[in-house]
């Protein structure tokens, strides 16, 4: 198994899917000649040609609307939003067009939208958001957020092969900071399946995306104190793996939900309600959440550090819960 970075995993998934299936093509801003804002698609134009790596004007709504049209014709577009924040410019085409098409007509829209999301990079309010909450609420979409190179590669391949619109939030902070083992052979990570990243017995830490790595550190720190933390990585936000959520809640009786996305209306609320509905009698403490506060993502370091959930805050909440 090769050890590669998170960003290399994404690049490999795209490359391999482009080679595997002629219908797959890339469309977005600066992805062809420039190789992408994060250089993920460097070399793709030379290999696959301008018919399959399409540089566009700045027109998110048309980029996604046209991807819907191409998908209806049987193609497999992978759209790159330069930053996940700009997905808001295409909100209508995603929620009114792509999401509802199959329910209304029985015709699938096999579309993938990649959105570099997340903060910690001094990006400020419009280059740092985690917008998954906006889309989790729209029936007809699938939303995924991988945390490791293995999951990044496997989920992107699964997304490309999925007949339905998938929004793939890749956390930009993880691009070059996280490395992991990835199988040499072709593989997918199924959409809709969470994964226990660490087994534990005292507290369940349910999370996804960049926060999984904070969770690993929390786990290490607390095990030194004799507290065993189980980490459930959701991986898919919709359709949510409610079975896995309930299983871990029943196992430990104490659940802490962590996400970098802001608190109110975040996925954490949905997870908490799922547990309250399905595992209430197995709980030994309140369901807690650690999330970013309800503010836009601030720019200056002092504010951004106060904004982002960190190991200290998460560990404190986990410890509080463990001793409840």
């Amino acid at each position: 198994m090769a050890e590669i970075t998170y960003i290399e995993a994404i690049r490999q998934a795209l490359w391999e899917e482009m080679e595997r299936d002629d219908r797959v093509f890339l469309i977005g801003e600066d992805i062809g000649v420039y190789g992408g804002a994060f250089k993920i698609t460097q070399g793709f134009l030379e290999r696959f040609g301008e018919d399959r790596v399409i540089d566009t004007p700045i027109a998110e709504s048309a980029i996604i609307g046209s991807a819907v049209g191409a998908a209806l014709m049987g193609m497999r577009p992978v759209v790159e939003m330069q930053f996940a924040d700009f997905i808001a410019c295409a909100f209508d085409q995603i929620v009114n067009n792509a999401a509802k098409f199959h329910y209304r007509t029985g015709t699938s829209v096999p579309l993938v939208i990649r959105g570099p999301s997340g903060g910690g990079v001094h990006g400020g309010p419009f280059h740092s958001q985690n917008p998954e909450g906006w889309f989790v609420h729209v029936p007809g979409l699938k939303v995924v957020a991988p945390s490791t190179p293995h999951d990044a590669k496997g989920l992107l391949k699964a997304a490309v092969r999925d007949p339905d619109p998938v929004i793939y939030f890749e956390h930009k902070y993880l691009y070059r900071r996280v490395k992991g083992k990835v199988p040499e052979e072709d593989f997918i990570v199924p959409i809709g399946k969470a994964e226990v990243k660490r087994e534990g017995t005292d507290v369940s830490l349910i999370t996804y995306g960049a926060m999984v790595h904070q969770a690993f550190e929390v786990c290490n720190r607390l095990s030194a104190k004799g507290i065993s933390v189980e980490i459930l990585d959701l991986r898919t936000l919709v359709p949510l793996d409610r079975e896995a959520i309930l299983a871990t809640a029943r196992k430990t009786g104490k659940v802490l939900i962590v996400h970098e996305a802001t608190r109110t209306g975040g996925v954490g609320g949905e997870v908490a309600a799922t547990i309250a509905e399905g595992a209430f009698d197995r709980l030994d403490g309140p369901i807690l959440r650690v999330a970013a506060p309800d503010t836009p993502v601030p720019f200056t370091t002092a504010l951004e550090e106060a904004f982002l959930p960190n190991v200290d805050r998460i560990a404190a909440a986990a410890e509080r819960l463990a001793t409840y």
Partner: protein
Amino acid sequence: MDDAGLSRDQLLDIYYHLRLTRSLEERIGILYRQGKIFGGVYLSTGQEGVSVGAAYALEPGDITVPSHRDMGAHLLRGIQPREILAQYLGRIGGLTRGRDGNVHFGDIQRGDVAFISPMADGIPVATGVALALKRQGKGRVAMTWFGDGAASRGDFHEGINLAAVLQVPVVFVCNNNQFAYSTPVTRQTLVPDISKRAAGYGIPGSSLDGNDVLAVYQVAREAVARARRGEGPTLIECKTMRMRGHSEHDDASYVPREMLEEWRKKDPIQRLEARLREWGVLEEEGEARMTKRIASELEAAVAWAEASPFPEGKDVEQGVYST
């Protein structure tokens, strides 16, 4: 005679589709007033030439992305009146099986993309359809319709600009019927000819009398040929008039009576009839035969649609995803 090079059969085919569109929509209006059709009803009465004329320029394998007043285009793609009526009645026999209403239907198998309500959303979709068609390399084209109101939305700008930059085979047909709900086109834009915007995208554009169905056909045919030759998109603006309210519950009292009178004289069906009679293509008997034919087709279609069952409530969650 300026018959656009069409044969007698083709001229009669166009005439039949104009008449069928008009009669089908009249029937839909009646069913609505009888309370059998619920929800919204948006008719294309008086504008049939724009949909029929332009769609007639297409070949099998081409793709349509219609808007809400393009019943004639759906019919030319082979969607049957009975399926359309079942759709309006919210039955399983409709193309959305009750999941969506009135004009929100299509069939990819027959090359017809289902409309969604936000105006102009179909424009980028048509661009993407054309992108796929270009890649498929079989010389197919896409055609989409939208109104004067839709032309104010960002998707109009983004979708046409993208189509122009990518040089994809698509024809953009603007159905300028003077009103977007209650908003007159003079409140929509300062420049009355929407076709002028084409220059801003570097593509050809023209305005024409949308109630002259053969003129619409000719202009559309040229635009389709351009697209097939790989010369990219065209913007066609068909001037017409919305003869009824925005929807059937709208009495459209805001429309000046004189405007309606003026446009009534330019009715697309009457005008084609006059020319067909003049050319000896249509005689009284033929007209009467067609009236009977359409009436009996619609009777059968209504019966079929009314016999189609409603879907069951227990199935409400089916079909959100493909699998």
